[in-house]
């Protein structure tokens, strides 16, 4: 039979964004100069600008302290947010109190902005518990380590928001789910996007593309920019400079507002960089070169904001120094609290397996209690 033929008319390999180009929303240059964007802007008071800076400095300082605690053997692991402060603080500050957050294991900056006690993630990483905070208290769900699984939880939650009649006006509630570039490959994340589209769920997919999933560069996950994934499901996707706290704020705010007003989901790709190792167990020198890290240093989210504040005379050396001091204080307090943190009681391992309890577990608990007591009576073997 004869051949069909076609002009396929679709670019097969859209040229990948380099981090330097402008195929993303940016409101501050790496040098801290404000730039105009046709669709997005912010209109902060000086106080608010300073508050964003403060958040970023404090979360970076707490992060550094946590890493050092890990190095000293006080934590089993630490997943550093270094380099991602703007994406996290900008997006988190765009949330309203009633909005709900579903984080990964790296959203310490978001956690801080939601007002949770910054010690909480350290309990998880010290392995005294499993990140067991109350998700409702600050509307910030527990961390999720299984990549992508929580995206479905976020969408289900958002479906519930709709059912509760809490979308469709400026009083509406929105949901945001954080995940990484690597997570974008998981079936669960794709299913979450499908469901969000079909149910027009009030959810924002916030993907921090920090260029790596452990050792694998983002090209292993996608051959076109991740924000474009949304097009295939029928909702908007947008890329923002994730090292620009103002742009991160503006883009997230718009997406959350669209969601709460009933316009459905948005995918935001925050283009950023993981400056540190994947976790304290990782050795990034095995898979990336210094030059790359150096290039990203020039786009640092905090120095950029500091330059902006200085240039705009919103803040000066005294302010910066005061913030650094405040951050140090927080860090010292964090350290002290970690050092004082008790281990859980062994028998607590039987608590909360079932809300309704289980006689089997009661027996096993009794078995362990008896066993542990046998050492007390007879002395350690």
């Amino acid at each position: 039979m004869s051949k069909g033929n076609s002009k396929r008319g679709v670019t097969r390999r859209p040229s990948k964004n380099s981090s330097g180009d402008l195929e993303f929303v940016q409101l501050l240059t790496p040098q801290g100069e404000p730039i105009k964007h046709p669709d997005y802007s912010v209109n902060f008071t000086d106080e608010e600008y300073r508050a964003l800076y403060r958040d970023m400095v404090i979360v970076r300082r707490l992060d550094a302290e946590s890493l050092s605690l890990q190095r000293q053997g006080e934590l089993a692991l630490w997943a550093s947010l270094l380099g991602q402060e703007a994406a996290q603080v900008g997006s988190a500050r765009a949330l309203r109190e009633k909005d709900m957050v579903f984080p990964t294991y790296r959203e310490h900056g978001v956690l801080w902005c939601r007002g949770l006690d910054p010690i909480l993630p350290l309990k998880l990483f010290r392995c005294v518990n499993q990140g067991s905070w109350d998700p409702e208290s600050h509307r910030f769900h527990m961390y999720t380590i299984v990549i992508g699984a929580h995206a479905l939880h976020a969408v289900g939650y958002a479906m519930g928001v709709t059912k509760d009649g809490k979308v469709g006006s400026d009083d509406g509630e929105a949901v945001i789910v954080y995940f990484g570039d690597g997570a974008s490959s998981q079936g669960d994340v794709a299913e979450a996007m499908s469901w969000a589209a079909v149910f027009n769920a009030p959810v924002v997919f916030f993907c921090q593309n920090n260029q790596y999933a452990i050792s694998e560069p983002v090209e292993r996950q996608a051959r076109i920019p991740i924000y474009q994934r949304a097009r295939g499901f029928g909702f908007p996707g947008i890329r923002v400079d994730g090292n620009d706290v103002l742009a991160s704020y503006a883009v997230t705010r718009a997406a959350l507002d669209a969601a709460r007003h009933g316009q459905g989901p948005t995918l935001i790709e925050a283009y950023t960089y993981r400056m540190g190792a994947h976790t304290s167990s990782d050795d990034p020198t095995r898979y990336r070169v210094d030059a790359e890290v150096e290039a990203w240093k020039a786009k640092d989210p905090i120095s950029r904001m500091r330059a902006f504040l200085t240039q705009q005379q919103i803040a000066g050396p005294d302010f910066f120094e005061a913030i650094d001091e405040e951050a140090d204080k927080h860090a010292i307090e964090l350290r002290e609290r970690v050092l004082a943190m008790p281990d859980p009681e062994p028998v607590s391992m039987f608590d909360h397996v079932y809300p309704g309890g289980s006689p089997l577990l009661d027996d096993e608990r009794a078995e362990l209690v008896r066993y542990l007591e046998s050492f007390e009576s007879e002395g350690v073997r």
Partner: protein
Amino acid sequence: MADTLTLGKALNSGLRRAMEENPKVLIMGEDVGKLGGVFRITDGLQKDFGEERVIDTPLAESGIIGTAIGLALRGYRPICEIQFDGFVYPAFDQIVSQLAKMHYRSQGKVTLPVVIRIPYAGGIGAVEHHSESPEAYFCHTPGLKVVSCASPQDAYWMIQQAVASDDPIIFLEPKRRYYEKGVVDTSLSLDQAYPLHASRVLREGSDATLVAYGPTVRVALDAAEAAAEDDNRSLEVIDLRSLSPLDLDPVYESVRRTGRLVVIHEAPRTLGLGAEIAARVTEQCFYSLEAPVQRVTGYDTPYPPARIEDEYLPDLDRVLDAVDRTFTF
């Protein structure tokens, strides 16, 4: 009030009542709405409770359980239907790593009252993936509870109890028994109904004990009947009902009297529930057992083509054969 209902209709009525009792109860799954499910267990519910409460979902099992978790976090009580046993596996991570563990991980701050209904097991002459018995996977998973109903009365009450429970529950429905009829007493209150996580002696006997659940309960009862008539043997029959946690005290009590135990299930033998029951009963009744616990189960093969499933599934003869073995050991 007592009605004679099929097991399937009893489930339908129980679901209806659960939805009436609590506006937070939702039903979600593939084809559960207009179609009423491929087995019609949710028949009429979308019509009466609306599309907001009876949700036809996208074709994605991980999505069904994952979004149900999110809905539960928001205060809803989702009942998920998995269309057939063999299609639950794409949701496995959401079930065993997410649903099962969140209460524990949160140290009790989060509860997820999600019920996962699964028409399960074989005997309906179906094509592959439609006849499996996955209960052991779930019973081995701490944080899940697992139950199976074997009569219309239990179907009606157990589904309501499962929905009312704050535990995540895998609710296994013996699909080949959907059309069997029985009397259902609908006049009780939930508290008065036989407890969800308790096994039950269905027939008393003194010579040997049969333990079954779900679709094999009928097999056990028939075997006991035949043994009484043909062999003049008195077999005690216990319906486990709760597969996790197991309620084995009645089994121990029985075995201490009879000295002989046969466990019957359709799942493959290796690491099927029979293994756990054998291990525990042997431990608790070591000096009472006259013979090792016998297991009458599916074989350790994938579920075979249905034209030979009769030889795969435990039936009356295989049960009686095993009873014989306990006498001649």
